[in-house]
């Protein structure tokens, strides 16, 4: 957190490719799950034209599997500051899910996904990854990953995986939407937009009670406590989460198979 806490709130000029040392690391590529990418992309879209920012978490295999949208305390179109008040909570949330802090992401709503001089100057943590998402249409790489050590930027290869999504797509052509195809036949669906904890879990349980064992329930849950709490409670009662992906509006879509 000391890294993120020291990100200062100063304006920075538009990104210039001149200041970025473009090197390829040559090592293993950075792996990013589709959910995490979708979360970043959706967040960037929600916040545009303001820069979106947040933390990234990696799982035991080192794969970046979750993005944690945070508040850009600057509320600016060309720079960002992670809200210090949120940093503790998010790092705790990451740990509570058995994940580790992997890096910081932010968006460039109107410029390519390359670090600005300030991005470089203020990147204090040599172990963190810096991911940048651009909303510029037609960009070949809408998201890029960098390591920044001693003011030197190294771009890393980035692979977006759909591994946790059976039937999911690993295309980078935008955030996955609810209408994406899925292998599972949905027997019942409930939309819990705006339904907080713990009533959302109550409604999931009621919906599960109404289908047969082995059948599938589709649930849309709000981001934040709902997505952090409900799936784990559902799994604890023996049901399986078949799919879990973020929607463009930040909410999450789950497909739950009722326990046999």
């Amino acid at each position, binding site marked *: 957190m000391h890294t993120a806490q020291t990100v200062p709130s100063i304006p920075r000029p538009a990104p210039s490719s001149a200041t970025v040392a473009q090197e390829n690391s040559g090592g293993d590529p950075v792996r990013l799950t589709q959910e995490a990418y979708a979360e970043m992309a959706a967040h960037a879209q929600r916040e545009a034209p303001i820069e979106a920012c947040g933390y990234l978490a990696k799982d035991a295999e080192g794969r970046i599997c979750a993005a944690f949208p945070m508040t850009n305390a600057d509320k600016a179109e060309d720079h960002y500051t992670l809200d210090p008040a949120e940093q503790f909570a998010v790092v705790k949330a990451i740990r509570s899910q058995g994940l580790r802090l992997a890096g910081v992401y932010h968006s460039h709503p109107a410029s390519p996904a390359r670090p600005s001089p300030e991005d470089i100057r203020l990147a204090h943590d040599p172990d963190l990854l810096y991911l940048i998402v651009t909303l510029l249409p037609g960009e070949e790489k809408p998201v890029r990953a960098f390591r920044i050590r001693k003011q030197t930027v190294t771009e890393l290869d980035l692979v977006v995986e759909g591994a946790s999504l059976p039937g999911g797509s690993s295309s980078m052509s935008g955030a996955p939407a609810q209408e994406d195809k899925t292998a599972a036949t949905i027997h019942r669906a409930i939309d819990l937009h705006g339904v907080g904890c*713990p*009533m959302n879990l*109550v409604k999931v*349980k*009621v919906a*599960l*009670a*109404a289908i047969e064992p082995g059948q599938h329930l589709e649930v849309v849950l709000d981001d934040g406590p709902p997505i952090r709490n409900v799936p784990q409670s559902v799994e*604890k*009662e023996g049901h399986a989460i078949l799919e879990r992906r973020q929607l463009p509006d930040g909410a999450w879509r789950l497909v739950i198979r009722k326990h046999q």
Partner: protein
Amino acid sequence: MREFTEEQLERYSRHILLAEVGVEGQERLMDGRVLVVGAGGLGSPVALYLAAAGVGVVGIVDNDTVDRSNLQRQIAHTTADIGQPKVESAARAMRAINPEVQVTTHHCFLDASNVRQLVRQYDFVIDGADNFPTKFLVNDACLLEGVPFSHGGILRFTGQTMTVLPGKSACYRCVFREPPPPDAVPSCSQAGVLGAVAGMLGTIQAAEALKFLTGAGELLTNRLLSFDALAMRFRSTPLQRQDNCPVCGKEPSITEVTDCGPILCAA
């Protein structure tokens, strides 16, 4: 599956959230029927918690009216209820908590003439009676009708309770056999009881009823749970069905309920 209204989901959310209760358990509570014998120290908390839980039908049988001396522990009644039938006062409190619960009041003495036809209408019976003859009457009627029940008794700072599944677990007579002679039950000084002790025992009985209806957990069968609130120590005594039990043994001598008043029985 029952359709829950939004209000029901909200009201019962804390039960539905429990893995061991859940939607099905709450449905069983709402379909359940429990008879509470006695609307006094034990019956008061039992009645309120069963109503809060949304048990479908709660019957209460009690012939008494509210007396000021009851109010030190019988929390279903208020000062304004003094002189009114306890079953009415308790029913009012239950309906105020949860208007969905159907409360059936029986303002009468429980005796041999009515006990069997009453208990057989219920899934579970709570014995919150304050006298031994009624406790044996409830035991015998529940055994003969096959209705599970929770026995409860309090005295001064102590309480004891056990849950009986007729034909499956030890009954009250397996343990206590028959009422003590009436003159062996000191009436006057023994009337004292710490108010909260009634609450401690009644809430355990309510929990047993909720567990029975939902199927959650392990009931207090073949165990007598007793406590002394003065030392705040709890003890569990293992029990067994007795082959020679007069009501649930191999050759039962009790095949019908009989009124067992303090005088007639003791001779």
